[in-house]
């Protein structure tokens, strides 16, 4: 006998299908059922007054397994994802050992199968050991299930090698994801170069370190015809470059993090290491530019760059602390409270940038409520009032700059393959 669940009375927002209407969603055997009368005996979940959308997809997380299980594991990371409303994640290759060969990809997928509560898509390394010297075995990685390639956390400084990587991966249809940072220009800078860094006397990196690399990668994408995706875009210059390249027809796409949308480098005045990440928090002008890019489509999607670190790595001297913050469990509330509630970005745009757009970029299933699709669904309560409490995170790590923030709007239910995920 078929198992049927009905999400009743919610406002369904499904950007892929142009839907924004109050209607019921019927799930049969883990899949979205075609519209029609629901069978008797179905389980009813009342979601009246709530927003029902396709499960959110985060194409940029770091789950640290294997190698850094004290920061995060696939098990804890996927629980954090589910708690934050995400039904699928793509995890970066900078594990130890690096995900630059099939056995590591297999291991990550096995951990996901046994401990994961949401879908996990591995991203393979572009170069062996992320060393920027030799290509990893990308054909086999793609066959094993890697959905993209990236040396994220590091930048491939050798332009010729990067060109070869783009050419080599053309037959697989997998994008190359660029961590755009010219490490000569960034030169170990712990924060954005600007009036705040001048005041604080912290080693700083110019926005140019990102702009230069985005420009290079756009030119390489144009030369090779490859799809280059710019991770965590954060500068006005990079947004302008991507906008111009897209208008020319270059296959370049980009993502932005919630923190680069709502925080400026002014937050570093606290010297709180939880305001330190790569790329760094930028100026107000840059924040305005990424908001504009998110609205006009220059920026294709929102990704968290969830980067867990242990407390001991994030409580000391700012310049000695690790780069990165967790994001899975705060992203949706931060976006709803800071961008949707004040009317800066429409709710439907935010949902599209978390569903249909990321699915399109990495050729992933999901991202829509089309009949027959796997029933991956996120339910939002736009009126829920929450306080960010890092000690209650499902993630192993607590490194967030949003601790104590009072936010309105939150994910309240995450459904994968038709089953409500409990975390």
């Amino acid at each position, binding site marked *: 006998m078929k198992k049927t669940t009905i999400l009743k009375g919610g406002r369904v927002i499904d950007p892929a299908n142009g839907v924004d209407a109050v209607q019921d969603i019927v799930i049969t055997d883990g899949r979205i059922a075609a519209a029609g009368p629901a069978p008797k005996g179905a389980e009813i979940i009342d979601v009246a007054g709530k927003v029902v959308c396709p499960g959110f997809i985060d194409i940029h997380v770091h789950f640290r397994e294997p190698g850094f299980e004290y920061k995060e594991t696939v098990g804890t990371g996927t629980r954090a994802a589910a708690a934050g409303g995400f039904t699928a994640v793509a995890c970066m290759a900078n594990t130890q050992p690096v995900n630059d060969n099939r056995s590591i990809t297999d291991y990550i997928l096995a951990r996901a199968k046994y401990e994961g509560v949401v879908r996990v898509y591995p991203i393979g390394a572009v170069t062996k050991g992320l060393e920027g010297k030799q290509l990893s075995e990308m054909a086999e990685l793609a066959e094993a299930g890697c959905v993209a390639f990236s040396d994220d956390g590091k930048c491939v400084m050798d332009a010729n090698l990067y060109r070869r990587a783009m050419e080599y991966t053309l037959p697989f249809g997998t994008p190359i994801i660029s961590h755009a940072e010219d490490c000569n220009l960034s030169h170990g800078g712990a924060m954005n170069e*600007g*009036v705040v860094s001048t005041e604080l006397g912290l080693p700083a990196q110019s926005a140019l370190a990102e702009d230069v690399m985005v420009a290079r990668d756009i030119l390489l994408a144009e030369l090779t015809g490859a799809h280059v995706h710019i991770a965590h875009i954060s500068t006005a210059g990079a947004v302008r470059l991507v906008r111009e390249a897209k208008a020319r027809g270059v296959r370049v796409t980009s993502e932005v993090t919630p923190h680069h949308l709502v925080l400026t480098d002014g937050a570093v005045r606290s010297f709180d290491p939880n305001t330190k990440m790569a790329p760094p928090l930028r100026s107000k002008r840059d924040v305005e530019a990424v908001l504009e890019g998110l609205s006009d489509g220059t920026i294709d999607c929102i990704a968290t760059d969830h980067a867990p670190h242990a407390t001991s790595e994030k409580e000391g001297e700012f310049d000695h602390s690790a780069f990165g913050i967790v994001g899975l469990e705060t992203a949706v509330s931060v976006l709803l409270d800071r961008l949707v509630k004040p009317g800066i970005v429409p709710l439907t745009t935010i949902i599209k940038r978390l569903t249909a757009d990321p699915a399109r970029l990495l050729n992933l299933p999901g991202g829509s409520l089309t009949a027959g699709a796997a029933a991956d669904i996120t339910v939002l309560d736009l009126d829920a009032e929450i306080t960010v409490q890092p000690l209650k995170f499902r993630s192993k790590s607590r490194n967030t700059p949003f601790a104590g923030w009072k936010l309105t709007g939150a994910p309240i239910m995450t459904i994968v393959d038709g089953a409500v995920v409990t975390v």
Partner: protein
Amino acid sequence: MGWTRKDLLTMRELDASEIVTLVDTAQSLEEIATREIKKVPALRGKTIVNLFYENSTRTRTSFEIAGKWLSADVINFSASGSSAAKGESFVDTAKNIEAMSPDVVVVRHSSSGASEILARQMRCSIVNAGDGCHEHPTQALLDLLTIRERKGRFEGLQVAIVGDIAHSRVARSNIHAMRKLGMTVTVAGPPTLIPPFVGELGVKVSHKLEDAIRDVDVIMMLRLQNERMDGGLIPSLREYSRYWGLTLDKLAKHARPDVLIMHPGPVNRGVELSPEVADGPYSVILDQVAKGVAVRMGVLILLAGSKAAAQA
């Protein structure tokens, strides 16, 4: 004469009246150095820990003398002789020292913001004795005390700060303090040593020494760290000293006859200052050092002393 703060971390956070309170308090304590018995009971029974993660002779000695003249128990903790050398984290060290109930911790650290971290972690008073390239408030205070004694005022004075502004905590503390006290500040140096957007801190920028020192009341020369060549910031010490070194000849041609020459030390003789200038009639460099002890006594009394003790 209100002083309500637990810590002295930056000049940026102080208002003009707080700065004047600190300078006045220091001035009232200067005469202790002239006594035969240099000891007052103001901080008897108080414990001061000098927590120095960076080499420093002048500043640590100055704080140590200040604490001892005030009858406090002063303990020096240097990173190289301690558990920090064995890999203990900065925060763990702070928590361990906190457990021993000090009244004041004076911290010197190579990382900007180190004193803010301690102030968040510890209940006792924190004095920033220099954090990275951020601030060095007691240096700014002793500079101000020196300037006021010689010039009789702050308002309307013109100051040139010359050299490696980008890496100077002394420059930052002085810029904040001097602006609040109504002084005009010009920072000067090769563009690679001037931090971007420094104009937004309310200073003028000059790239020519001769222009910067013209008509100013005070010239503050900064030490050029030898390692600055490594980052491609300057080609050589030789070229730097040729264009940015202050000599008697340049002073005579371009500066006022009553100009004060200051330097936070240690001086690179022959690089930023010629020996004749460092030891010459314009120089108040040793005055600065002497006033450093009075300033540190004043700070320690305001942070750790009882009201009665402040009258001692």
